[in-house]
């Protein structure tokens, strides 16, 4: 019997080669606990916000009859522009953590690097998985809003929710890229979460409290410039300029992360 050990892939340039699927599976296994935990947190929050909305709206509208609060305004202001967005940022950041720097600390990086897969592919596949999980957070929680609204006697347009979810995840690629970047910079288990979450929370609350002003990724995520001021529903297309800037920032962060991984001595 002859055993042949080779590192030469038969389809080295095909993206969905067997090794890519294996690395994808590895990245999913590494992050699935975090993914399901964050999904439960997001879903719980949406359920809470929608179930408590009739009571809140009736109390508010009784107290301020001349400033009637619409359900669509409640959903955008409370969820897409504030709390749901904040929790999405938390979830997307947490699933982006991990990777070779962390594996170096736990002593398993050499096993991963021993696989016949380039560092670039290891990183890009992990980034794709993190991004896909972040998209799932955004779309699942957004779709849950119109579905649950029907149970409490309210209605929210399905495609509006979907569009806000899509906007949140498209612009939120910056958050995923930031998480990937920090997790390749810091090796400690708690260093990147503490540094990243403190930074993101400070910036998020700074903009929401109007201490920081001007263009920001969080307004692009909630499509602030594309909504009707009265109904706070999307009036037309997305703010493509803002989305393009977010995409460019993400590309720069991903490029910087790739450079860090290539330069690091494992």
């Amino acid at each position: 019997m002859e055993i042949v050990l080779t590192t030469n892939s038969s389809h080295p340039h095909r993206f969905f080669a067997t090794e890519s699927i294996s690395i994808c599976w590895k990245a999913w296994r590494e992050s699935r606990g975090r993914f399901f935990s964050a999904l439960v947190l997001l879903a719980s929050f949406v359920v809470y916000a929608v179930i408590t909305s009739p009571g809140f709206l009736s109390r508010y509208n009784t107290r301020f009859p001349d400033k009637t609060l619409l359900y669509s305004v409640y959903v955008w202001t409370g969820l897409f522009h504030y709390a749901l967005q904040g929790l999405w940022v938390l979830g997307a950041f947490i699933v982006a953590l991990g990777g070779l720097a962390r594996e170096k600390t736990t002593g398993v990086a050499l096993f991963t690097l021993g696989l016949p897969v380039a560092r670039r592919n290891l990183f890009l596949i992990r980034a794709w998985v993190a991004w896909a999980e972040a998209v799932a957070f955004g779309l699942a929680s957004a779709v849950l809003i119109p579905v649950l609204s029907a149970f409490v006697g309210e209605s929210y347009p399905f495609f509006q929710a979907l569009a806000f979810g899509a906007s949140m995840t498209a612009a939120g690629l910056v958050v995923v890229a930031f998480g990937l970047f920090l997790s390749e910079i810091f090796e400690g288990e708690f260093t990147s979460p503490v540094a990243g979450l403190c930074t993101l929370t400070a910036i998020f609350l700074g903009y929401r409290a109007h201490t920081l002003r001007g263009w920001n990724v969080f307004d692009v995520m909630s499509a602030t410039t594309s909504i009707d001021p009265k109904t706070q529903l999307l009036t037309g297309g997305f703010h493509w300029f803002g989305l393009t800037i977010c995409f460019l920032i993400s590309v720069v962060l991903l490029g910087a992360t790739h450079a860090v991984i290539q330069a690091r001595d494992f």
Partner: protein
Amino acid sequence: MLFYKAWIETRVRFLAGLVAAAVVCIFYLEQHAWLVSMWAADLQNPHGYHMKWMPLGIHEYGWYLWHYLYDNYLQQVWALFAILFAFGGLIRERNGGTVLFSLGLPVSRRRWLFTRLLVALLESIGLSLFAVLVIAVGSAAIHETFSLSQVLLHTALMVAAGVFVIAFGNLCYTLFPGNYLSLILTLTLLGAPYLWLQTYMQHMRYLGRTPWIGYLDFAHTMAGPWQITWTTTPWMALLVAWTLTAFLLMATVAHGDRLDY
């Protein structure tokens, strides 16, 4: 030596916590004048927002501090860092491959655990006292006076009820020590039931009832009433928090004793 080791392990988190607590306190002290003027303008405007709490917010600086810090943002930051301080210990060393050096020392596993938890508790107390210092200095800077004894009582209440968070975080880390999993899982396991409890309690308050499950509303217990006295302290809720903390610690000890390193 054990204390020093635990301190070395957590000091970066502790310093990050001090920065976060300072940022939150300074931010809301800086916002005070602007918020008060906004509420005053609203009250004077017949078409403005008129909330029951607005006169309190305008005239009682102590209420403002309690509402924004001890009932909301400082409490949340404190709880997040208390959880982070509680993570680590022998389980983390097992993942890093150094646990056998620690276990080789003539120190029992329980002593490792309780030393680690004691340091987490001391750091949590340090964090809350640092917040008091920031409030005192910041309030002097914005020319506001407050009752130091009330702020200290709120700090004591936050820590006294918050020991549950430390024990819960440590148990979660012991059971689910994967990379970053413990953090989001602890937040989910605390956050999701908290939201459900809030929904239920809101409904019960609307019906004018106070069910026993309200004793499990630890965020409410940590905040307490805005003016704490002996009679307004939530003693029963504190007793529930401490009992559950004891159960969590027992579960962590039992799991740690059985674990094969």
